[in-house]
């Protein structure tokens, strides 16, 4: 795992003390809110409906048990005993007091964490695949590139005041678990004909008010040229991106209006001007230095299949169901990747109590070489579990209500905080997620429905990724009353697509029935082994429109 060097630690410590001074000056009146607001946002502090909200970065979603315990400690000491894991691989606290925030940041700094670049028009926390380093289909660990980008972009003077915020995601597998095509820049690690490893580059994807799937602008970028090429993209954007209109400021608008081909050419022109032997050159030894941080842990030699594990699976169907849904194939024989669902039936997606965080920290130490990942689908992943430990782990998870067997099922819902917390919301998101979850539950029916990703946002900012939900739900406000618009057929994986609006929005009391109608229509139309998205792509919107609106 990456460790701060002295420079990182000093920088973070300085930032904490700087912010302490800024808070003191705000409270004493030396700073007006207009002056203070950008400063607090740069430190991840927002004002929400009921209180301040602090967003803490979890770079590429990786945490040690020590860090997880610190997150629990902060929830207990300064907040209301829980935290909310988000789609940006962050954790948010919903109730901190302004005067406490410098202390929170100081506590975080002791475990190499901070809230820098979680807000503001800078390059945000880089996101990556939660299966990084352990996926069976991985070409190379995407955290290496993520870390290189993080070091380059952290407080980069040229890019601290971009036209708008800037999000980069990296995946190292052909199966995209990091939604890279809906990011400002998405990178896929690929191998070319010559067997060299490099990047396929996508740019201008995004969600929000104007959702777009990013086009590819480079088929193969050699590894050593990564930063020079990113710098070229950002220079073009910094120069031409619109600063006059908030809604047109993201790079996606620039790419769309310029045209992908022309934009790619502009980047290449800029790229040609950059001195690639200078500080943007990535020498192999520097790549190796960072790669070493992400070296494989000391795996044991284990049999490919643990006999004990197989026996437990046939003895205990509940365990078998959990394994089928929540456990993924590991690149090393005898090991498993374990997903911990933060979507208990009827619960709040992404929330974890301080006690749960502590329990998870214990389990990380005991079963997963002290490491966990936060996923963009608001779940957690234990990357290094021995098959032989799975049964014990499952029982411990059950004791803390963390063993819901529903990964990628209809109840594994992404929901933004919505009107229950968010200042910008039009409608609530969480109660819908809870009702859908209650309606479908786990077990036979949920298994028959299979993979179905529902994503809910409380407004057009799309923090809940509704555009790329197989079923997307968007909260809209009609004269102070909550309405919900449904889209179908979105996807955030390697075949990314944006959902199609199914028709007029539904009221709160009709929307859950509408979801059920959609599910029933799918089950009716489904052919052998087809998943929801496959059926939708084959039959289109019409049959769903019909069943949803026919009764009138």
């Amino acid at each position: 795992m990456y460790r701060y060097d002295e420079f990182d630690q000093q920088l973070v410590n300085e930032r904490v003390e700087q912010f302490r001074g800024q808070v003191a000056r705000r409270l004493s009146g030396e700073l007006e809110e207009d002056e203070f607001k950008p400063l607090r946002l740069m430190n991840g502090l927002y004002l929400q409906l009921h209180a301040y909200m602090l967003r803490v970065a979890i770079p590429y979603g990786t945490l040690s048990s020590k860090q997880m315990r610190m997150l629990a400690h902060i929830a207990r000491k300064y907040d209301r005993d829980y935290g909310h894991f988000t789609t940006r691989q962050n954790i948010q606290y919903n109730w901190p007091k302004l005067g406490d925030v410098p202390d929170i940041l100081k506590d975080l700094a002791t475990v190499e964490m901070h809230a820098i670049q979680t807000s503001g028009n800078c390059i945000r926390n880089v996101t990556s695949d939660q299966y990084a380093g352990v996926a069976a289909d991985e070409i190379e660990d995407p955290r290496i590139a993520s870390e290189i980008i993080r070091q380059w972009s952290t407080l980069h003077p040229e890019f601290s005041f971009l036209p708008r915020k800037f999000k980069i995601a990296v995946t190292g597998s052909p199966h995209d678990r990091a939604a890279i095509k809906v990011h400002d820049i998405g990178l896929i690690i690929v191998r070319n004909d010559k067997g060299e490893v490099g990047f396929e580059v996508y740019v201008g994807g995004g969600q929000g008010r104007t959702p777009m799937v990013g086009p590819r602008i480079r088929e193969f970028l050699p590894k050593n040229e990564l930063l020079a090429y990113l710098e070229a993209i950002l220079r073009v954007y910094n120069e031409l991106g619109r600063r006059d209109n908030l809604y047109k400021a993201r790079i996606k608008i620039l790419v769309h209006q310029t045209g992908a081909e022309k934009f790619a050419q502009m980047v290449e022109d800029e790229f040609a001007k950059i001195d690639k032997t200078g500080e943007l050159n990535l020498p192999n030894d520097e790549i190796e230095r960072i790669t070493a941080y992400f070296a494989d842990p000391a795996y044991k030699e284990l049999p490919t299949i643990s006999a004990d594990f197989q026996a437990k699976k046939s003895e205990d169907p509940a365990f078998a169901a959990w394994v089928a849904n929540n456990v993924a194939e590991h690149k090393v024989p005898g090991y498993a990747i374990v997903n911990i669902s933060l979507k208990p039936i009827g619960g709040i997606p992404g929330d974890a109590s301080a006690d749960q965080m502590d329990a998870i920290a214990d389990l990380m130490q005991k079963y997963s070489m002290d490491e966990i990942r936060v996923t963009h689908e608001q779940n957690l992943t234990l990357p290094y579990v021995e098959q032989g430990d799975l049964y014990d782990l499952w029982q411990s998870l059950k004791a803390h209500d963390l063993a819901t067997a529903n990964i990628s099922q209809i109840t594994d819902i992404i929901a933004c905080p919505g009107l229950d917390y968010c200042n910008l919301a039009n409608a609530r998101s969480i109660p819908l997620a809870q009702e859908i979850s209650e309606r479908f539950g786990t077990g036979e029916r949920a298994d028959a429905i299979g993979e179905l990703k529902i994503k809910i946002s409380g407004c057009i900012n799309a923090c809940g990724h509704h555009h790329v939900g197989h079923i997307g739900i968007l909260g809209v406000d009609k004269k102070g009353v909550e309405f919900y618009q449904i889209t179908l057929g979105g996807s955030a994986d390697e075949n990314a697509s944006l959902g199609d609006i199914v028709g007029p929005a539904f009221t709160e009391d009709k929307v859950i029935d509408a979801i059920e109608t959609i599910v029933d229509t799918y089950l009716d139309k489904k052919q052998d082994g087809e998943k929801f998205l496959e059926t939708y792509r084959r039959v289109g919107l019409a049959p769903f429109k019909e069943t949803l609106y026919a009764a009138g």
Partner: protein
Amino acid sequence: MATPAQAVTANRLNDGEVVYLDAAGNWAESLDESKFVTDKAEAQQLLEQGEKSVDDRVVLDPYLFDVTIENGVAIPVKKREHIRANGPTVRLDLGKQAAEPVEFKKAS
């Protein structure tokens, strides 16, 4: 009889708590203690009074919002203000509702 009225709300600077301007010009934590006004000029005055406490570093972003007074109880017109006055609808143990369930909670 339902009477439309307005009140001024804001978030307190030091902890973000939702507060309401009361008749004495203080910021109260409960909507029940808020001052309600029915005429435009009064509403403007109340808002200006609220804005002064931004300079005094007591609150952030004061604004007017609509309520309906029914049998002496003020019910916010918008869901958003219901939720601000009570707390998250998904965690009844948090926010103002945790201390003291608010009467209009069930109204919609």
